[in-house]
């Protein structure tokens, strides 16, 4: 049997700098033996002095860890792919505990050890540690996303606890960013949680957003929403957007060049025309649906799998229990991302929306 063996970067210099090697054998053990005889230096890495595969090396057959199969005795066939993955992620050593923690992801071919390392190397900014930012941040943290930035200026209020899963009873009165960091780290201490304890404004957006790969929008007001849209576009970052009110949710993904929030809604409603959740209410569990959808879209983007929600607007009606999808087009007349743009830097969003950034007026 001729098997393809994937050699990850740290081992490549031991294997003639090749990414894929061919090796022969009827079982995993025979293939590894054949590999080791071709590349003795590599053999030293795969086997320890007792001729066993050390705990920090995982062997995957077609993206399945061999311990979940028949170990080294697992039979192989023509066309199979074997991967020798050392416990390394983003330059850091992956502990056996981490291999176990992420095993349900790693065993899926769409994720695999390489996908898990992409997640661990990813940096995601969550705007707003509230209803949507909560479930997004939690699921991204559980998935092992390496760096999660949280920007919020607010303190936890008792009325937040009806839906905001990052905060608990004892956190009332604490800054949301600190409460969020504590919760995330209690779920997964691997995550590097970066706290931005201030409102996002035209003054700091272009400094903060470039530090991340993807932006998740959980803002609760139009002023911040347009700012996040424009800043993400100007920084060339993908924006995973979500919003909720009463029993309705909307989710969308904006990639520079394929439409933005301004293409969808060219201007905000006058203040007071569309109520906020604080004014009109929101079904708490709805935040879990839309926030989780945002997390799913982020994970798909990092893993480069599936069909992104880009160019589509997902509508969720909790009362009818219906999901619908409508088309979201880039507007050639869009002042930000259209053919003849007039916005090439951040504008006065408080003037544009007729409403101050929350936090500036103590709102």
């Amino acid at each position, binding site marked *: 049997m001729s098997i393809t063996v994937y050699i990850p970067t740290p081992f490549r210099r031991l294997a003639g700098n090749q990414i894929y090697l061919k090796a022969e054998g009827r079982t995993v053990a025979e293939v590894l033996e054949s590999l080791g005889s071709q590349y003795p230096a590599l053999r030293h890495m795969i086997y320890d002095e007792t001729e066993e595969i050390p705990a920090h090396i995982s062997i995957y057959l077609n993206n399945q860890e061999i311990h979940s199969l028949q170990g080294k005795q697992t039979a192989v066939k023509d066309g199979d792919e074997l991967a020798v993955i050392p416990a390394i992620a983003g330059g850091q050593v992956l502990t056996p505990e981490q291999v176990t923690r992420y095993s349900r992801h790693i065993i899926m071919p769409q994720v695999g050890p390489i996908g898990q390392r992409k997640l661990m190397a990813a940096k995601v900014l969550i705007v707003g540690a509230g*209803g949507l930012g909560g479930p997004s941040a939690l699921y991204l943290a559980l998935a092992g996303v390496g760096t999660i930035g949280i920007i919020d200026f607010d303190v936890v209020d008792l009325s937040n606890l009806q839906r905001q899963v990052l905060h608990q009873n004892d956190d009332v009165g604490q800054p949301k960013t600190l409460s969020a960091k504590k919760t995330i780290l209690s779920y997964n201490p691997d995550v590097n949680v970066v706290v931005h304890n201030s409102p996002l404004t035209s003054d700091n957006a272009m400094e903060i957003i470039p530090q991340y790969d993807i932006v998740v929008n959980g803002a*609760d007001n139009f002023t911040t929403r347009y700012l996040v849209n424009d800043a993400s576009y100007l920084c060339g970052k993908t924006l995973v957007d979500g*919003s*909720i009110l009463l029993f309705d949710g909307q989710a969308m993904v904006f990639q520079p060049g394929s439409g933005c929030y301004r293409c969808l809604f*060219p*201007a905000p409603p006058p203040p007071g025309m569309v109520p906020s959740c604080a004014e009109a209410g*929101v079904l708490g569990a709805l935040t879990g649906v839309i926030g989780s959808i945002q997390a799913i879209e982020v994970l798909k983007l990092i893993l480069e799998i599936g069909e992104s929600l880009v160019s589509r607007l997902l509508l969720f009606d909790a009362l009818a229990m219906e999901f*619908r999808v*409508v088309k979201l*087009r880039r507007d050639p007349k869009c002042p930000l991302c259209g053919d003849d743009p007039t916005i090439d830097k951040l504008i006065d969003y408080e003037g544009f929306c007729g409403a101050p950034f929350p936090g500036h007026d103590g709102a």
Partner: protein
Amino acid sequence: MMVEVRVTANLQNLVNGQRSVRAEGSTVRELLDDLESRYPGFKEMLMSNGHLHRFVNIYLNDEDIRFLRQLDTPLGEGDVLSILPALAGGSR
């Protein structure tokens, strides 16, 4: 032409608390006139000076009418119209 019109929860109070109403018209404009005649004040929430507000989208099936013929977009039997205002909630 009878068409189903779906509204979001924050517009429900304009149509007696219903999520979905049937309305008559051969174009979107005629249909909104029909709704206005039965639910006075409905159009005002969506339009000013004969134009749709820029924070409200109307979808004919899955297509934004801005990319069709706007308010003159013709309607067919069995079409579903969705009225969707921007929502800001995140939520604090």
